[in-house]
């Protein structure tokens, strides 16, 4: 996919470009808010990664202008300002995700992919299915290979998120933010424990495991 990267710090920009290219994306770089906005208006991008504090035009204004002009390309903020109010301000401006610098490359790659894929998948669905696993969002039931699986409400939401992003790497921070809506770093491996509980329920009695740990990154649900 095509990614527009608006970042004024050239070394960081080049590192991110390399990482995104290696992940299979075509990357354009803009060094300030103005040129970033005009490139984005030109269209043709699948995801925009936008620094917040940019020369010439603030990233928040760039997003506001783009949304006003009807450009709906998903925007991922990459910012050094990481408090709750900053995050809310960024999301309110019209961005789709907010990452605080410094960020690990893997986290960024996972978020970019999730943003692009998420465009279609966040659409209201009543059923999700991955491999032999079926989720009925209305009846709130899950079956795998026709066998019913009982989950706690939070486990249900965790699995729903993983299913919506099946085949993609999902990081711990993404799960923390999207499933629990928590925006702090737990000092314990609490996410891993939740995952292993879920795994015990959905994988244990089946020959083919679906929920995989991606070392150093997070988790991935495969068909």
């Amino acid at each position, binding site marked *: 996919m095509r990614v527009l990267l608006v970042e004024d710090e050239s070394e960081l920009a080049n590192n991110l470009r390399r990482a995104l290219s290696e992940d299979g994306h075509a990357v354009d770089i803009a060094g300030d808010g103005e040129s970033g906005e005009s490139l984005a208006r030109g269209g043709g991008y699948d995801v925009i990664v936008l620094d917040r504090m940019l020369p010439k035009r603030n990233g928040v204004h760039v997003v506001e202008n783009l949304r006003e002009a009807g450009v709906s390309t998903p925007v991922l903020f990459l910012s050094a300002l*990481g408090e709750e109010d900053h995050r809310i301000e960024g999301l309110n401006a019209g961005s789709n995700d907010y990452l605080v610098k410094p960020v690990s490359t893997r986290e960024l790659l996972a978020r970019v992919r999730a943003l692009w894929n998420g465009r279609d998948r966040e659409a209201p669905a009543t059923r999700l299915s991955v491999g032999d696993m079926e989720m009925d969002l209305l009846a709130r039931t899950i079956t795998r290979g026709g066998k019913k699986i009982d989950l706690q409400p939070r486990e249900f939401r965790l699995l729903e998120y993983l299913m919506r992003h099946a085949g993609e790497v999902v990081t711990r921070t993404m799960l923390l933010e999207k499933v629990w809506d928590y925006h702090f770093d737990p000092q314990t491996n609490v996410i891993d424990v939740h995952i292993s509980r879920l795994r015990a329920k959905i994988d244990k009695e089946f020959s083919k495991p679906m929920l995989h740990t991606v070392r150093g990154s997070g988790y991935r649900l495969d068909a």
Partner: protein
Amino acid sequence: MPLALPKLASIKWARPAFLRPDFWRRLAQRTIMLRTVTFRLALVQIGLFAVFSLALLGFVYYATVVQTQAEADASVDQEFTELEKVYDKDGMNALNQEVFERASSAGPQLYILANKEGEIVAGDFGAFPQLPTGASQRVPFEYKTLGPDGKTEVNRARGRIGRVGNGPILLVARDMANSSVLVGRVTRAVYFGAGLGFILSLISGYFASRQAARRAEALSRTAQDVMRGDLTRRAPVVGANDEFDTLAQDLNAMLDRIERLMRSARTAGDAIAHDLRTPLTRLRSRLEAAIESTPNEEADREALRRALEETDSLLATFTAVLRLARVQSAAGWQFQRVDLSAIARDLVEFYEPVAEDGGVSLASDIEDGLFAPGEASLLTQALSNLIENAIKYTPAPGRVHVSAKRGERIVLSVADTGPGVPPEERERVIDRFVRLETARSTPGAGLGLSLVAAVAEVHRADLKLEDGLGGAAGPGLRVTLTLPVLAAKG
């Protein structure tokens, strides 16, 4: 070629005092009274006093002058009527006799009687002040007499003149000398009183305003001393329990808080230096060793991996420090209605699996509908820190109990069966960055309670550390947050 002008500054001459810059400054300082609010109030007071005095003077004038004139007029009218009756009944001779008798008796009464043709036949004067035109009429007039010292005196009188029954002309009048004396005395007394009052109110205004100005100056001096850097200075509280005392107390409370913040900022600076510099040094020496050792791919990768880990933990500390600073700066938090029951329940559910994995049972007793004014993300993080700390410090097998209850206020508490905190350390443990020596081995623990303390302060909540549930490891720890209840929605 430009004209060479003599440099003004080089001319030396003795400058008069009023040309020296500090002369005017000093004069301005000396006349500072004129600029103070209290002095202006004193001026208003004097102005009001003047208005009241004037009104009083007017009243006294009316009560004496106008009233005496009216009384004189009434008695003149009455006498005129009496004399008319004498004429009507007994004729000219009787009137003549009556006027003669009355004129010779002592008193302020004055008379003139003339016959039909206008020739004066009896009375005090040889001529009328004015002649009657038709009906009888009032006449204020002046007449001259020779005083005992031979000087001419001008006297004022008020009378009535007219023809009596188409016959003789009669003037009945009252000398006003006595009433003039009275009016003069009263007027003088009022003037004197007003003057005295004016001077007294000037003096009292001066002292009142000087007193107020002095106390305002004392407050201002305190502020200036603090600005110069002496944070230990406090404003004097006189004990008069007035606005100045309230202001001084508020100022002092503010200074206490600033001093506390400054001190904590200073210790925080040291703590940041320690918490960041130590791992940075370790990171640096590790990288240095990796570069200088003989290249070995496996060892190098391991060094890089560890350097990355170290960087992440540094960043976590850094983020925590920033967050703490931001919470403490307090500005910008918009308080909303926060559902503490939901927050507590979600967190217990969130941490329950990890506690169980560590051999600690996480139980809870959370009442429904606990709403407090606050910032949800901060309260979530504070409670999460408390639960996380409790789980971390409680050895297996152990218990952690989270409770949320409502009494007069909302009481959130997290209790554990861990080693606890000795009473003498409890104060210190809440201070920024202070970490119990025994806890040094657990990374990142130092900031947890500091953040809770900061969040508590922002929410005007009380934070208390007590003995917890007790167990094999020690007395345990109970951390209690007492928050205000959100007023019922109107």
